[in-house]
Each structure stands twice: as C-alpha cells, then as structure tokens.
C-alpha cells in the first residue's frame, strides 16, 4: 500500500499514542467538564492550584479523538507551573501551533481542550467567590464552543418548559 502523509502530523500522533497527564486527579482543586457540540465528545480537566494561583498539576480525561487527546495533553503541559492569569491567555490557535497544526475538520477538538481549561479557571474563581480584573465577564470563544454538561441540560429543560407551558 502506497504511503500517504497521514491527516495528523507525527507530533499529534506521538502525543496521541503517549499522552501526558492522562487520568483522573484525586486531589484536584477544580474539575471542569466540557462537551463538544460538533462531535458529541466530552472531556474533563483537573487542576491543582496553589495559594499563589499557580497551577501545580493538571490532568485530563478524554473519550475524544487523537486531536483532542494531543491538544489536551499539550495544554496540561503548557499550564504546569503557570499563573492562572497567564494560563487564561492560552488560545486554541496557540495550542494548534504547539501541536504543529491540525486538519481543519479537527480545529474544534483543540478548541474543546482550551474551552475546558477556561471553564476550569472560571469555576475556580466562582468557587472562591472572587473575580479578578483580568477575567472577562463574557465567555471566551473557546468557552462558548465548549458546553458544560449541565448547561446543555439547562438549555434543554428551559426549552421543554416553554413548550410545555403552552
């Protein structure tokens, strides 16, 4: 069989085969689930954050595709030892570059990884009841693309109520 360049570059494939920080974290400070409306995939991000708002550890669980695993893996690496404020600045485009590019149909998988990160950071501050000045009130692009499980359920419930109320 003639060898074709694969849709994923070697770096993505390598990260997919040997992902870093894959698995549940028992002592996480914050956990966030993010769902992908485009493909129906779901990932969970775990962050351990210290008093200085620095991410000490990060891990993820994914039932997603190679692109998702690779980008999640690289995101967890990128944010280790980083302040939340700086972690927030990571965009899905920078992640895409960090893995050496993705096929366009797989962009949303990288968005999901960053969405999960953003969601986790926001949740951390919500739990703490503070909101730092650098954290935008409106949802970031990545957050918008990555729905929380409950959020999906909420939209749904509201819909049903309106329908039933009629």
């Amino acid at each position: 069989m003639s060898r074709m360049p694969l849709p994923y570059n070697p770096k993505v494939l390598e990260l997919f085969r040997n992902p870093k920080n894959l698995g549940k974290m028992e002592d996480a400070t914050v956990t966030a689930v993010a769902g992908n409306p485009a493909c129906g995939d779901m990932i969970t991000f775990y962050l351990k954050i210290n008093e200085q708002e620095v991410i000490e550890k990060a891990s993820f669980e994914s039932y997603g595709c190679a692109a998702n695993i690779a980008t999640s893996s690289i995101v967890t690496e990128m944010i280790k030892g980083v302040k939340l404020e700086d972690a927030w600045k990571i965009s899905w485009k920078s992640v895409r570059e960090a893995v050496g590019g993705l096929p366009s149909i797989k962009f949303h998988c990288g968005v999901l990884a960053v969405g999960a990160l953003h969601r986790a950071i926001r949740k951390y501050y919500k739990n703490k009841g503070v909101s730092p000045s650098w954290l935008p009130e409106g949802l970031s692009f990545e957050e918008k693309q990555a729905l929380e499980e409950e959020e999906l359920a909420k939209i749904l419930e509201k819909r049903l109520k309106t329908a039933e109320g009629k």
Partner: protein
Amino acid sequence: MLDPYKIREDFPILKRKINNYPIIYFDNAATSQKPKQVIEAIKNFYENHNANVHRAVHTLSQEASELYEEAHEEAARFINAKGMEEIIFVRGTTEAINLVAYSWGCHNLTKDDEVIVSLMEHHSNIVPWELLSRVRGFNVVYVNVKKNGKLDYADFENKISKKTKIVCVSHVSNMSGVINDVKRIAKVAHEYNALTLVDGAQSVPHLPVDVNDLDIDFLTFSGHKMLGPTGIGVLYGKREILESMEPFQGGGEMIREVSFNATKKRCSIAWNILPWKFEAGTPNVCGGIGLMEAIKYLKRIGMENVKAHEEILTKYAIQKMAECKKVEIYGPKDTSVKCGIIPFGVEGLSSHDVALFLDNYGIMVRSGFHCAQPLHEIFGLKSSARISFYVYNIREEIDRFIEVLKEIEQI
C-alpha cells in the same frame, strides 16, 4: 446598463421553438429561466462534490458543507443581512411564510391579537394566517388596496393598533407589479411594537433589497423566480427574533442532542444553533448551491441594472399596448410605482384564451388570477392575463407580442 442580447446567450431554453416560433417567455413572475452557469453548477455539484452536509469527516461532505454554508453567506450578503445565521433555506416563499406562522405565530399570537395582511397578497401570505387564526383565535385584519392598485396607507395606519402583532405585506404585488413602501410600513409597525414580514418573492429578483435599510423583521423569497433552481428559497429573520423562536420541523441536524431518559421514559432534545435549528433533515443542498450561482449571476449584472432594464421594457410595452384598441391594462401604468409586471385583458376574450392564442405563436403568458384572488375582486375582474419581464427579455419580443395581440383582437 445590461446587455440583454449577450445575456440571452446564457439561457439555453431561449433557443427552443414552440410551434416553429422562437420562444418568447413572458411568464417570469411565475418562474424564471435558468442560465447555463446555474445548470452547470448543479451538474458540477453532482459530478464532483455530492454528499450529505453538516460536516461529516470525509472530504466530499466537507466540500458539500462548505459550499452549502457559502450559499447561505452569499444570500446574506445579497440582501445585506448580518450573516449566515439570519438566512434559513426553505423550499420557497410559501414555506418561509408558513415557517413564521408555525414557529413564531403559534407561540406568540393569541385571542385578542391582530395580524395585518394586505389585500394584494399572494395566497401564500393569506392562507397561513387564516389557517392559524382558526386555531389560535386571533383576528386577521385586511388592509385595503385602492382601485388604482396602490396600497391604502391611510387604511393601514387606521387599522394598526396595539393589538397588532405582525404586519404581512408583499414588497411587490405579483399581479399588478405595484411596489409597496415597506420601509414606511415597518417604521409604523415598529411604533406599535409589531413585527413586519415582507414577502419579497417579486422584489428580491428584480430590485436591490437591503433588509438593514428597510429595517424589516422577516423577508421571504424564492430561488426559482431569480434564475435559481426549484425547491429552494430563503427566510431571512433578524437574529434575535429567530433565536427566540420555536423550531418548525423536527428531525436530524436541527437538534444538538437527543437522549433517552430511562426513568422519565422520554427523549430529551437540545436545539442546534442558527440557521440549522430551522433546517430539519437533509436540506436541498444542490438547490442552495444553484441559488448561490444565480445570486452571483445577478450580482455581476447588478440589481440596479436589472431594475432599469425592466423599467425600460415595461414603459415600452405599456405604451405599445395602449395602441391596441381592445386591450385594457389593469392597475397603475406609471413605472415609477411598479415593477415589470403588466396585467391586462382583451375585450370579449377569456384571459385563458388570450394566453392560448399567444402560446400558439410561441409567447408564454400567464392567465387566471395568479394566486391573488382578493386583488382581482378589488379590480372587479374574474381573471387576467399577465406578462412579466426579466433580464433576458428584449424590445423585439414586445414588438412581436404587440403584433400577435393585434391579430388576436380580430378573432
């Protein structure tokens, strides 16, 4: 200016002969002919890119999805909408209006509300409201049309009230060609917090239409009347309104998720984003792509030029028809208030016979009441014959039409 002689070369059907006469197609208000560019786009799609849309992973589906989305974007730009999410592809104007009636009307109209409809509407802007009113109990209030064919704006301003929830009016009448001042209507409607639905089936193909400038809430039009394929049309809606609306049809692709809850024993559903929420099931993908090609064709000509060309033809035809003694033109004759649609009658002849005799000489015109029965009643007519122009019609065709009309007067 556009060059109709050059344009004609793009339309294969114009080479056809009927009864050995070259075809003269004057039934454009019913449907338009298709340029080879549109036919080629359809062929090319099926020969090279055909797949189901909504971005399955494989190449063909990616290509088809991109083309289909591009078609939405193209339609959005054509009427100056904000973007794809304001453009819902439907079968045509009729489905577009029914969609609004079902999805918006069913949930927003109740007993004491009123829906204002003009008496010059095509049946597709009357029947959905009448049907719905019988279920929801609101009133359909009809705005008069003057004997001269123009909308009675005083009557409109008289009838609109706080009870009015939506005003449904055509931009251009498909029987008389009269152009309505929908910008003025929308302004008044908004003062009463009512929405405005504009039936653009006869305007979008023939005039520049800018939803932003007109500030209307819904606009509907049909691809087949603007050089595009059959089975495709557009519902434009302001984003906030579309977002607040219930879906119309249920099925694949209009939902984000269906899951079965074993305890509740029912399926739960979450809608997809705009415009897909309103496009249930496999859409008319190729229709959308054909429509995009038609819009590109019209844009190359320029809608101002389309309008100017039809105005010249209409002026000429009206002037020439005045020379025919037994011919009567209905409605206004002033081309500053109307488009290229001319309804007429021949003394002593049924409109169907006028059409039959013209057809005998290869001239295609419509007869009957053109799905605008109430307007015919206002004009005191049982039916009428109608000619209507488009970009490929030429003066010589009108000359020939007049020649045959004079012949018919002798029958």
